[in-house]
């Protein structure tokens, strides 16, 4: 009897606990979504439903432009960082060379160094060599901190990679370029994709490094919001945030479904084999 009650209590507390965790994580996001539909300008009370802020957002050129800048910087820098990072990871995996340990160590520095130091350092370098500040300088800055993350994720994927697979391809007549493009890269693709996604995410919500390396006329979305916070965030920012949240949610959902399906397929084939 007592045991049963104890088990029930356990179940109950674990449920409450999980609920609180989710509430803590998602309540702020829910508030943003809710107030994007609020008729009142101040986000204290929900006074009524409206889509006005979405209309206003659609005409807020400064806001949209900053968002466009963010996407452009994130897109271009991710592309560059992914290529450099992937090739670095493959080279570090494949070859032994002098100073490898040092390069390995140096890769960690952009990750652990306070962002503000990196931001100031980049700014001083740019002014030293007279690089005009703007989207270009920001892209270079973002690539700098993105590379290590791509290297780490790709390298994690490579750690289980059997080198004789590459040798087998060469043995069958593939030259080095074909081995890389047809064998190595497709096999480590999941690592490359997750590295790229990580780099993209880091770039999209970066504030500190962007703050130091941006030009006067190339604000990004996070910087724009920072600017607005001082004068009070207007609900059209909520509207744009809601759209971003929804887009993220859809992307996550699609990727999870495809992972789930792949797992199911693997399970099924294993089951079939057992039945034999």
């Amino acid at each position, binding site marked *: 009897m007592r045991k049963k009650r104890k088990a029930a209590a356990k179940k109950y507390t674990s449920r409450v606990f999980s609920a609180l965790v989710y509430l803590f994580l998602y309540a702020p996001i829910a508030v943003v979504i809710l107030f994007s539909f609020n008729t009142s300008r101040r986000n204290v009370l929900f006074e009524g439903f409206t889509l006005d802020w979405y209309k206003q957002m659609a005409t807020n050129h400064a806001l949209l432009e900053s968002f466009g800048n963010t996407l452009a910087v994130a897109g271009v820098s991710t592309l560059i960082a992914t290529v450099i990072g992937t090739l670095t990871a493959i080279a570090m995996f494949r070859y032994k060379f002098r100073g490898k340990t040092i390069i390995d160590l140096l890769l960690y520095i952009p990750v652990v160094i306070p962002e503000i130091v990196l931001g100031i350092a980049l700014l001083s370098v740019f002014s030293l060599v007279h690089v005009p500040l703007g989207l270009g300088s920001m892209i270079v800055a973002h690539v700098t901190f993105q590379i290590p993350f791509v290297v780490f994720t790709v390298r994690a994927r490579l750690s289980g990679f059997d080198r004789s697979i590459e*040798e087998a391809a060469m043995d069958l007549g593939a030259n080095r370029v074909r081995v890389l493009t047809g064998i190595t890269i497709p096999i480590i693709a999941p690592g490359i994709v997750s590295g790229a996604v990580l780099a993209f995410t880091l770039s999209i919500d970066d504030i500190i490094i962007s703050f130091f390396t941006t030009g006067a006329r190339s604000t990004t979305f996070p910087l724009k919001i920072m600017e607005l916070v001082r004068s009070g965030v207007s609900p059209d920012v909520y509207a744009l945030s809601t759209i971003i949240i929804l887009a993220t949610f859809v992307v996550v959902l699609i990727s999870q479904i495809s992972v789930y399906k792949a797992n199911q397929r693997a399970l099924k084939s294993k089951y079939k084999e057992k039945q034999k």
Partner: protein
Amino acid sequence: MAKAIVEIKNVNKFYGDNHVVKDLDMEIYEGEFLSILGPSGCGKTTTLRMIAGFEQQTDGVITVEGERVENKEPFERNVNTVFQSYALFPHMTVHDNVAYGLKMKKVKKAEIAGRVEDALSMVRLEGFGKRYPAQLSGGQRQRVAIARAIINNPRVLLLDEPLGALDMKLRKQMQIELKNLQKQLGITFVYVTHDQEEALTMSDRIAVMSGGVLEQIGTPAEIYEKPTTKFVADFIGETNLFEAVEAHVRDDGTVCLNAEAGELTGADPRFSAAELVYLSVRPEKTLASESPVTGFSLRGTVRENIYIGTVVKSTVVLQNGQEIRVSSIAGAPVPAAGSARYIHWNPGDAVIIHSKSNTILDLMDSLDLGAYVAGGA
């Protein structure tokens, strides 16, 4: 003799200071099944990888079909490899795996499809084309790896312990299949293994390696019955090994030897006086009788008899403590444990191995170092 398709001349391989292949000389004949046998770290896989082009020899020459290959990349050599780990491409179907080599050679698609079918049916995997490697069992993956290699019609197929990961029963089955496949295709197989039974069953010839040195190369029967080095005698099968010095050569050509355990007899005319040799005799050729035999003075006590189906394995401990293994066919009378026995054999059944230290002594003799030293003094 058959024509050599791969020639290895005076090849050395160093990894840093590590000398892994030493002065290797070997000819591999066209159409033969050659096994390179040895314990791990003996240089057998390195030798295979040098033929394939994954490793470059430090010095020496390797030729395939008469052409030197040291400047050829693996993808330029007309040899194919079956890897120990199979090394299938996990992101491709079985069909695409097998077709890969032909695709690289830009063979027409229609032709590829037919040849893939043929290759898959040769390894009895018809209908598996659409599967992925992860959906296959170990034995099936092995077959795909073989099909993927043989579809290219290589002149030489290199196999690096291809059955190492399979269980016993499947291994035996695959050994027979591989041997049949080799006969059917007429391709030269170079097969690396550490399993002597595997080498003995499948090979036309066996090359035994140890510590980077080629110990002996010959047919399975030669390797087993006439080992030329102590290592080969010891490594292949079971043997009773004696270190001995020549006492005298008898009129019938047999040689009387003195070992620590006593007097024994072998047959080998190539002798120099006071040479230190090894005498090896297989347990199935070793006899244990109740009364002494001329030419032998090996007395011992039977310690135990172990019945293992077809044979009974007896252990006789000699007076100096050396253990002698005697195997007799089950059903024949077996000496009781604890009884005294005299060990002997037909002198022709024993193999006398000239030890390596001796060749150096011979060399020094022929150089007449003594005279040189004396002259100098």
